[in-house]
């Protein structure tokens, strides 16, 4: 910090503070974001004695400014003189932790958590812990909510009497009469449990957990489900049945769909936390119920977990459980009334084939895949197609190709361009799995048709797709199948198609590169050069851009005799943009 010493007089605090008080919010915000610079100018001493008190006293500002301040203060330890003075930062952060705006408060808590680590154990008890207590017993709910996030960071490093106080405060907040505070407490319950001694987990946390899990508000109950994962992980297996399972069972059948949704959403974590025995006895039926839930939201969340759940089943009777308990529910979901449920299922169902093996896949799963490939909702079909690789490993894609093709063709021509875009993105993958013959025969026409789609995003994606196909199938293939068609488009009456030719050439040159200089010089370059006479300026300046890309591949002769004259002509074009790009190309290719 020595650098600041001599300069104090240069930067009187009044001037700096004036900046922080500027009438214009934007300027105030800028100043606060550079608070560290101000602190540096003042030096550690004056930062502690003048700047921080000022900040603490004047905290009434736009939330945006407060947010920036809360964030800055978390990184201020060195600027106040290192860990031994870090407690100076507590007063302003304490005020920030009580403001209404959640974003600000959360940031203040985050900074407090950060600097708590920089406190010595003594400072933690003398300065930090009293702050947590003050927040925990504040009048307005905001300070109590903030307190919830601070218990776990100081608990491990304080004496046992203080620990007892902290536990007591946490208990009180768990039964606060403001639901906002109970929600905050419930969301930190798992984290707090982790730092507690096992005995207290059993005596304190479990009763709090049970109470929160049967709160009158579903927004509190659902947070208890999250805590359930951490708590179950902490407890020895033999205690789970009595301490955790009654509550978990109740949550899985909660009358509020939000709670059931949460259970479904956290199912894999829960499954790992409670272990194989309880999974077999309790979670399998619970999972079946969630898959059959009356709310589509819950079914979709559960459907999303089908693969993970099955994967994590104990291996000894995994197959039997899946075949007798899970698969029947899955079969029903394939024809669910809700498309989100079906598409959630479609995104994971293919993963079951690796778990169930070849025979089961062919007999039981294949019909489901085929049914989903014919689903009315494009998202379902897309999700199946995007996961083809899992099946490919088990039974080979040929089994599906008969049904696959119509599905792909239909998606390729879907009225929604976002659907078309999605299927294009899977083309390289499909091409890889189906092989070059199948591709040439069935899919190549589609890929070429996308190049003249009426939506630019599709044409762009199709161009990019070409590049990936060329990478996959090689330059020779490109020369025989792609290049003639692309070059043909150079004479298209639509200038957008003519431009597509240029874009395609750019990518093909990029992947064929130097070894295939022949194709570039003989076939593509003449076309590009000819297009420099196009009547549409957009085409002309794209010629300049293309030449810039092709240039490095060409030999110097072609560059000098063919490219240079054309670029020079373009550089004196009537259109400003054409000129610009031509000049750029000339300088990049060093032709000047």
């Amino acid at each position, binding site marked *: 910090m020595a650098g600041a010493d001599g300069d104090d007089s240069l930067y009187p605090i009044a001037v700096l503070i004036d900046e922080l008080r500027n009438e214009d919010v934007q300027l105030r915000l800028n100043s606060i974001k550079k608070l560290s610079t101000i602190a540096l*100018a003042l030096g550690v001493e004056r930062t502690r004695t003048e700047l921080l008190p000022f900040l603490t006293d004047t905290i009434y500002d736009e939330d945006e400014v407060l947010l920036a301040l809360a964030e800055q203060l978390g990184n201020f330890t060195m600027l106040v003189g290192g860990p031994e003075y870090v407690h100076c930062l507590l007063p302003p952060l304490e005020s920030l932790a009580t403001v209404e705006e959640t974003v600000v408060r959360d940031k203040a808590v985050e900074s407090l958590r950060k600097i708590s680590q920089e406190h010595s154990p003594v400072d933690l008890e003398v300065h930090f812990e009293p702050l947590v207590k003050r927040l925990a017993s504040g009048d307005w709910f905001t300070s109590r909510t903030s307190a919830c996030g601070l218990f776990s960071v100081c608990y491990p490093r304080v004496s046992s009497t203080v620990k007892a106080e902290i536990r007591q405060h946490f208990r009180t907040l768990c039964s606060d009469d403001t639901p*906002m505070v109970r929600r905050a407490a419930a969301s930190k319950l798992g984290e707090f449990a982790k730092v507690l001694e096992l005995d207290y987990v059993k005596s304190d946390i479990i009763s709090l957990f049970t109470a929160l899990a049967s709160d009158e508000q579903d927004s509190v109950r659902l947070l208890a489900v999250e805590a359930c994962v951490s708590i179950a992980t902490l407890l020895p297996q033999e205690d789970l049945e009595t301490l955790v399972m009654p509550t978990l069972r109740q949550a899985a059948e909660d009358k509020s769909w939000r709670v059931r949704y949460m259970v479904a959403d956290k199912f894999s974590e829960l499954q790992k936390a409670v272990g194989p025995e309880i999974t077999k006895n309790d979670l399998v039926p619970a999972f079946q119920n969630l898959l059959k839930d009356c709310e589509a939201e819950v079914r979709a969340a559960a459907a999303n977990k089908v693969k993970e759940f099955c994967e994590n089943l104990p291996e000894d009777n995994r197959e039997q459980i899946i075949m007798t308990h899970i698969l029947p529910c899955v079969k029903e979901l394939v024809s669910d009334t809700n498309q989100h449920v079906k598409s959630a299922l479609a995104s994971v169902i293919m993963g079951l084939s690796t778990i169930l093996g070849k025979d089961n896949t062919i007999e039981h799963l294949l019909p489901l895949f085929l049914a989903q490939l014919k689903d009315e909702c494009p998202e379902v079909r897309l999700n199946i197609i995007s996961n083809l690789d899992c099946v490919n490993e088990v039974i080979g894609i040929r089994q599906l190709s008969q049904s696959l093709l119509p599905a792909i063709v239909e998606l390729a021509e879907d009225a929604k361009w976002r659907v078309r875009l999605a299927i294009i993105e899977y083309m390289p993958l499909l091409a890889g799995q189906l092989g070059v013959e199948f591709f040439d025969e069935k899919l190549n026409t589609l890929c070429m048709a996308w190049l003249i789609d009426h939506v630019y995003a599709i044409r762009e994606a199709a161009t990019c797709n070409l590049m990936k196909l060329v990478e996959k199938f090689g330059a020779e293939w490109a020369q025989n199948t792609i290049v003639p068609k692309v070059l043909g488009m150079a004479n298209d009456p639509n200038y957008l198609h003519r431009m597509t030719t240029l874009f395609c050439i750019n990518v093909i040159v990029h992947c064929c590169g130097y070894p295939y200089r022949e194709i570039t010089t003989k076939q593509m370059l003449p076309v590009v050069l000819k297009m420099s006479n196009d009547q549409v300026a957009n085409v002309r300046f794209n010629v300049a851009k293309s030449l810039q890309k092709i240039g490095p591949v060409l030999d110097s002769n072609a560059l000098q005799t063919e490219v240079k004259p054309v670029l020079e002509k373009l550089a004196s074009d009537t259109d400003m943009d054409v000129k610009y790009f031509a000049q750029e190309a000339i300088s990049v290719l060093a032709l000047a």
Partner: protein
Amino acid sequence: MSAISASEKVDGFTRKSMRKAQKQRKSQGSSQYRTHSTPVELSPLPQLKDAPSTEQQELFTQKLQQCCMLFDFFDSVTDLKSKEIKRATLNELVDYVSTNRGVLVESAYPEITNMITTNIFRTLPPSENPDFDPEEDEPTLEASWPHMQLVYEFLLRFLENPDFQPSIAKRYIDQKFVQQLLELFDSEDPRERDFLKTILHRIYGKFLGLRAFIRKQINNIFLRFIYETEHFNGVAELLEILGSIINGFALPLKAEHKQFLMKVLIPLHTAKGLALFHAQLAYCVVQFLEKDPTLTEPVIRGLLKFWPKTCSQKEVMFLGEIEEILDVIEPTQFKKIQEPLFKQISKCVANPHFQVAERALYFWNNEYILSLIEENIDKILPIMFCSLYRISKEHWNPTIVALVYNVLKTLMEMNCTLFDELTSSYKADRQREKKKEQERDELWKKLDELRLSNPALVQNNSHGLLRVQNNNNNNNNNSSNNINNSDTQDRDVDSAVAITTDEKEPDSMAAGESTLSAK
């Protein structure tokens, strides 16, 4: 997907309204009918009016119990006969409690509340449309409404029956009951919310012991709406009830009420969907100021703090609310806030969005505001002058320029000398400002050099350079701006119904009740 319009062929981004037109489907939801076992078929009971008076009470109870059977309204073909029987019975019950005296004997209360709770209290279903936009989208209607409407009607008649005794009912209509009732305000179905509004208003009027609780719960709902979920369908309805509650607050206002104003009502202005309840909200705020004018300064400062930065539509609403407040402001209060307020107004008149500028300039058509400005012209003119002078030359919209000329003329007439001084010093002032800005740049440049010469610190503070999260969500709802600003002032006359007292004088409650009614 057969008919794709030409415009969709051309560009993929069809307008929201067009997409909506394609799926003209009445959406209905309900989570009322749940995993219950199959309903037993109902058999019709004799009419209450035909029963001898000794048996009427027993029959009434039987009918109430019969109505506890719930049916699946998603399936429109099952249990048709039983559904019809329940509907007819409910109709009869509604009629029975509204026309007869002496039917509300003590033993009937638990049966009645049981029937009501079984039918209406439920977890609301997830919204059909995950990004439901109340301003644009059609709400999902409650599928079981044919029955539910009658149950609500029955509850209302029950509460309004002259024999209704809160002292007995409070055992059943308790905090838990009210809590569940309040949760239903999130229903997407406007018909349901309308009933709930009237019912909660009645309960607030009749159950003194529940008033503080109801206010507190509404508080919590709003805070959750503002700071956690940004989603609650019944904000407007709750505010409407509050409007009449505030009207009845005793003076001096309790600290609790002031806190509600400052910590809940003012922050409610930051909500994304402000347009949906702004009229009711502004009404509540003005009610408070009429009760206690000393709140004016904190309220206006609060509004200035949350002034929209990017959403012009909301800015117009704020200006409307400010005008409503100025309409009732006391001159002494006006003096306290004139400076910060007119600094904001001067920004508004210079707003490039003409509706914002126009709305602010309309203040000069308000006689009372004009008189306040005239009284304080020495303070206000210097604040306003720069903006007005500048946009009189620069604004793109001719209407605004014309309005600005008028305003400048009015202000000039108020204090000609000051106006001339400001005109002549305009250039010098601008230059002084520019110089100040340069000085600031210099200062920061020096500070930055200092920072660069100290690499340890730069590294330590690399976090500080991270982009700060955009905290401005509240204001970026920058969609269509074609709103008619008279809408924001068009307050629902019904909401003005007064609950004339705070807890203290229960008796006068009945007086102002009748106008707030469900259709």
